[in-house]
């Protein structure tokens, strides 16, 4: 397996605060991988650097053999990195379809002038984009809300729209920041199923940040654990579960058994 994403000695400082400190990790193609760690450990900051929202203070991110520091932040999507946000970052005045269409941005070509005329190539490309969007909508089972204005949807539905939008980018790597927080068991199950399908059917590599141990332990291939910006552990779900450092910093002993399948 090749490393799709390789992070070397990555650090980020905010003033006096070392949010991410000297983190190195690799994500292989076709993996579902999780990043866990206490609140404020720097997980989101790590995602922000991978997706171009923040520039690293030091260190290197290589994606698909490309050094990401050499390209402008807005090109990260075109390179193949898609993400969702911890606190929802939807275009909340638009409809679901429109939000997902925005995700297709890098795959369309029309310029302002083409847009004004809206004829020929532009029209064809728009129609094609809509076709793809319909497929994604079908895939994520959100047909019934396709024309709703995003701002009026429930939290869980919005999260799903965000996922759809990220998929519309056709990324090679999908970063999911706390996808299932605020969802109940049933909705969590749906998301788990989607994540597995995304990897299996679409061949997209997935990195998740989650605090919900059921989904982390059940579907990840590999888990990376951060604490105070540093990586303190890495391994398969079973290895991580048994790691005493992880238990102490993050899981907090008493409930780990409950997460065991079949307990």
């Amino acid at each position, binding site marked *: 397996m090749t490393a799709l994403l390789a992070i070397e000695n990555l650090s980020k400082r905010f003033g006096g605060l070392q949010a991410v400190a000297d983190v190195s990790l690799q994500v292989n193609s076709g993996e579902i991988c999780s990043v866990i760690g206490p609140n404020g450990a720097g997980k989101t900051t790590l995602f922000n650097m991978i997706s171009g929202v923040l520039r690293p203070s030091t260190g290197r991110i290589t994606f698909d053999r490309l050094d990401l520091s050499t390209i402008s932040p807005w090109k990260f999507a075109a390179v193949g990195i898609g993400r969702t946000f911890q606190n929802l970052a939807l275009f909340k005045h638009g409809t679901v379809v429109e939000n997902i269409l925005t995700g297709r941005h890098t795959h369309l070509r029309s310029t302002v002038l083409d847009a004004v005329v809206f004829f020929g190539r532009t029209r064809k490309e728009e129609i094609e984009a809509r076709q793809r969007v319909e497929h994604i909508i079908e895939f994520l089972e959100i047909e019934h809300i396709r024309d709703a204005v995003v701002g009026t949807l429930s939290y869980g*539905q919005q999260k799903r729209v965000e996922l759809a939008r990220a998929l519309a980018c056709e990324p090679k790597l999908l970063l999911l920041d706390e996808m299932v927080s*605020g969802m109940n*068991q049933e909705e969590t199950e749906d998301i788990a199923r989607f994540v597995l399908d995304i990897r299996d059917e679409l061949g997209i590599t997935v990195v998740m940040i989650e605090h919900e*141990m059921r989904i982390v332990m059940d579907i990840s291939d590999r888990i990376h654990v951060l604490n105070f910006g540093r990586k303190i552990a890495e391994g398969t779900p079973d290895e991580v579960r048994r790691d005493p450092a992880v238990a102490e910093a993050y899981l907090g002993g008493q409930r780990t058994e409950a997460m065991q399948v079949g307990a």
Partner: protein
Amino acid sequence: MPTTIPHPTPQAAPLTAPARDGLLEFRNIRIVYDNAIEAIRDVSIAVPEGNIVALLGSNGAGKSTLLKAMSGILYTEEGAIENGSIRFRNDEVHHLAPDELVRRGIVQVPEGRRVFAALTIDENLQMGGYTRTGAEARERRDKVFALFPRLHERRDQIAGYMSGGEQQMLAIGRALMTDPVLLALDEPSLGLAPLIIDRIYEVIVRLRDELKMTVLLVEQNAQRALDIADYGYILETGRVVLDGTAKQLTANEDVREFYLGVSSAGRKSLRDVKHYKRRKRWLS
């Protein structure tokens, strides 16, 4: 209509006043947004004094709407109580101004933290103690710091830059500053690390056991909530579809399947979730 399942609840006839009475009661309440969207239809809920009452339900069920009604801030979102009443200590309170409700001891930790981003932690707490005198506020602040030492460490930091978990702690601490009788928590475990959730749940239990505080707990994390709650309600699309003691609910087959993720065969792995699932019985 929903209640075709034989569940052992005392609330058999939803159209009458609730059978249990409590510190806080919602009676046959109906809430409409924008004069058009009916978010809550005829719900009756009672929160007995000194209890933890869990309010469960999927996204959009109307849980937060109930809490907004309780705090008197529905009007800020073009929402209105069309019918029914909210009673606190047997007084009708749904027409009171938010600050009066806080003074009477009703407070909530809103969904999604909502800390004052531009203010420091200290100032956020100060705002929690706005209705209290200076001395009272100082005293309560010390208690909050004792409960959440992390807040004390970073007391001069701008709240907006804290991590999600830290903000949740701050939001709870800020609510405690008002010295509440009834504390409502809207999804307190949202986005928190397991260890922190443990801590927060410990705190909630302590609030009930030591300070005799009454807690209304809205949660997605049904397992956790039912672990500590005394009583629970399940809300679906604006209606109470099930209620009972925590024990009764934990034993209910539907609740186990849909809210706790355990079937008769024990907890199943999320890898094995089927695409087509059993329907909830109360929807049939």
